[in-house]
């Protein structure tokens, strides 16, 4: 790994990030809106009130637009694995293949079958069967997310596998360990619930627009009640699962945690920087140390957040780089030595196998397995240690802006719910404008969450085992740049199409009159 083309690594990463971030513009609305529609249709079936049917059909149209434009954008990520990240793609073997295959089959059968009933089945199937189909679309699309996030969670905390040096692939030895990986489960719950919050804000924002235009009062207010209740409950769930994410991060990805908190020196009773501004021109560049220009701290909170103990020791960037024997933290130097041993042992194993020297192969395999947990660090032996530290300002600010927006969303749901229940919402134009302009903020918050998760774990593709420099395919950097810009054009085109079709449909409003709803 002496001649690394960083331009290639960076463009490949940029391309993957671009694809994933555009994909994530479509997915959370599908995840959340599917449940909101299911609730609305349940209200229709339970009460027999045709207004609920009209409301359900309207939101279903918007769901359909988002679904049709967003679907299959994630497939490109799989292409990128095979082309740009071929070493990684081979290396992960079954671990990634199995969940993605399950996802593909489930998504295809569950979603495609019942989506047809959902859209074409009004008045053709019974009310109850239609309702069941709507619920199955919601459950199916959310379960699809489970399998993707199981794969992602495994990359953050690889478990339940064994590396086979003969095939150069990780093989799944315990499916349940992979499925119930604490990082995956928490990530799944946090991600889908953030989608629910985003969808609730979307419904509230669009409803607010109708009230501002003095149109569709019934639809807007009823939708606001459903969305604000759903939004409030799921915001609480986002907070709970976010708390779980922080604990998992502190346990399995301490460098990401330290970077996110800009914690340079580890400490007991570590405070949480609730609000902070980093010094842009910090002179001390050792280990990317960033001083605070300004900070507001909550005493002991970081220790509590990380280990549920206000007195707990939280390691900082310096401890992780240099090691801290008192707290059993190995230094990067020690870990890279072990990694180097693992890489050499793997090479020796293959050579011994080729030469038919079974005893040497056995010894090499044992050495490899003993050091495999630090395999990836071997690529950084003798390199600049800064390469192992993620971008601190990016993770630090992304996390805080995301949390700040989350607080705003929770407060907005509460205010909207109270005002709608008191029937005063249509007079509060400032609140209505706030709700409308919160829609883009929800998307920004959703993307920031991924920036914390993915930028924060750099340089690892698979935590501690495979860094980006070893995972990338040896392609020409220019060819990656070309496809990057192609994707940029394609996805921007899709996004413009989505926004245009969506806004046109919103302006038109529900196409079905209440009279028709009653008739049907």
């Amino acid at each position, binding site marked *: 790994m002496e001649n690394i083309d960083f331009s290639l690594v960076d463009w490949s990463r940029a391309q993957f990030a671009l694809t994933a971030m555009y994909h994530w513009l479509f997915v959370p609305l599908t995840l959340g809106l599917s449940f909101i529609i299911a609730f609305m249709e349940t209200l229709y079936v339970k009460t027999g009130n045709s207004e609920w049917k009209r409301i359900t059909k309207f939101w279903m149209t918007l769901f359909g637009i988002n679904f049709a434009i967003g679907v299959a954008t994630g497939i490109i990520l799989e292409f990128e694995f095979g082309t740009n990240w071929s070493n990684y793609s*081979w290396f992960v073997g079954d671990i990634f293949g199995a969940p993605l295959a399950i996802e593909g089959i489930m998504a295809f059968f569950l979603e495609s079958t019942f989506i*047809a009933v959902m859209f074409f089945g009004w008045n053709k199937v019974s009310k109850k069967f239609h309702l069941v189909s709507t619920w199955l679309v919601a459950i199916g699309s959310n379960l699809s997310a489970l399998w993707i996030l199981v794969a992602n969670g495994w990359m953050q905390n690889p478990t339940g596998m064994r590396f086979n040096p003969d095939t*150069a692939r990780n093989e799944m030895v315990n499916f349940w360990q992979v499925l119930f990986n604490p990082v995956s489960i928490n990530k799944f719950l946090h991600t889908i619930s953030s989608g629910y919050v985003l969808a609730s804000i979307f419904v509230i924002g669009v409803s607010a627009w109708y009230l501002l235009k003095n149109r569709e009062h019934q639809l807007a207010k009823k939708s606001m009640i459903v969305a604000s209740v759903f939004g409030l409950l799921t915001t609480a769930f986002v907070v709970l699962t976010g708390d779980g994410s922080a604990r998992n991060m502190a346990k399995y990805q301490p460098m990401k945690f330290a970077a996110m908190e800009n914690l340079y020196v580890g400490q007991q009773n570590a405070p949480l920087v609730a609000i902070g501004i980093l010094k842009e021109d910090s002179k001390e560049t050792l280990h990317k140390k960033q001083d605070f220009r300004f900070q507001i701290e909550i005493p002991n909170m970081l220790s509590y957040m990380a280990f549920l103990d206000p007195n707990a020791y939280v390691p900082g960037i310096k401890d992780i780089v240099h090691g801290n024997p008192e707290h059993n933290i190995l230094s990067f130097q020690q870990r890279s030595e072990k990694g180097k041993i693992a890489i050499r042992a793997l090479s020796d194993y*293959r050579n011994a196998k080729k030469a038919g020297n079974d005893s040497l192969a056995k010894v090499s395999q044992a050495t490899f397995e003993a050091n495999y947990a630090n395999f990836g660090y071997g690529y950084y032996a003798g390199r600049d240690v800064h390469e192992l530290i993620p971008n601190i300002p990016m993770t630090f600010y992304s996390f805080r802006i995301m949390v700040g927006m989350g607080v705003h969303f929770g407060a907005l749901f509460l205010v909207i719910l109270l005002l709608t229940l008191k029937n005063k919402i249509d007079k509060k134009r400032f609140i209505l404008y706030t709700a409308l302009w919160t829609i883009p903020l929800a998307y920004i918050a959703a993307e920031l969450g991924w920036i914390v998760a993915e930028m924060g774990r750099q340089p690892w593709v698979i935590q501690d085992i495979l860094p980006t420099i070893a995972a990338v395919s040896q392609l020409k950097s220019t060819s990656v740049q070309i496809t990057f810009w192609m994707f940029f054009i394609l996805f921007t085109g*899709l996004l413009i199409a989505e926004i245009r079709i969506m806004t046109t449909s919103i302006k038109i409003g529900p196409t079905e009159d209440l009279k028709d709803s009653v008739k049907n």
Partner: protein
Amino acid sequence: MKEILFNIFQFYYQGFKSMTLGKKLWTIFIIKLVFIFLVLRIFFFPNVLKSNFKTDDQRSNHVIEQLTK
């Protein structure tokens, strides 16, 4: 059985026929799929290991070589 299949066909046929906005969405969806699978996949995103090597043995040797060089 024939009747069931006919009813399923009719269900989809009538559904597609009565679409309004759906027609525009299907057009976008099909163009997107064609672009993804017939342009991107074939011309820009070959599976590097599948296209460069014939057997899994060769692929694993290549990956090991890349990882241990």
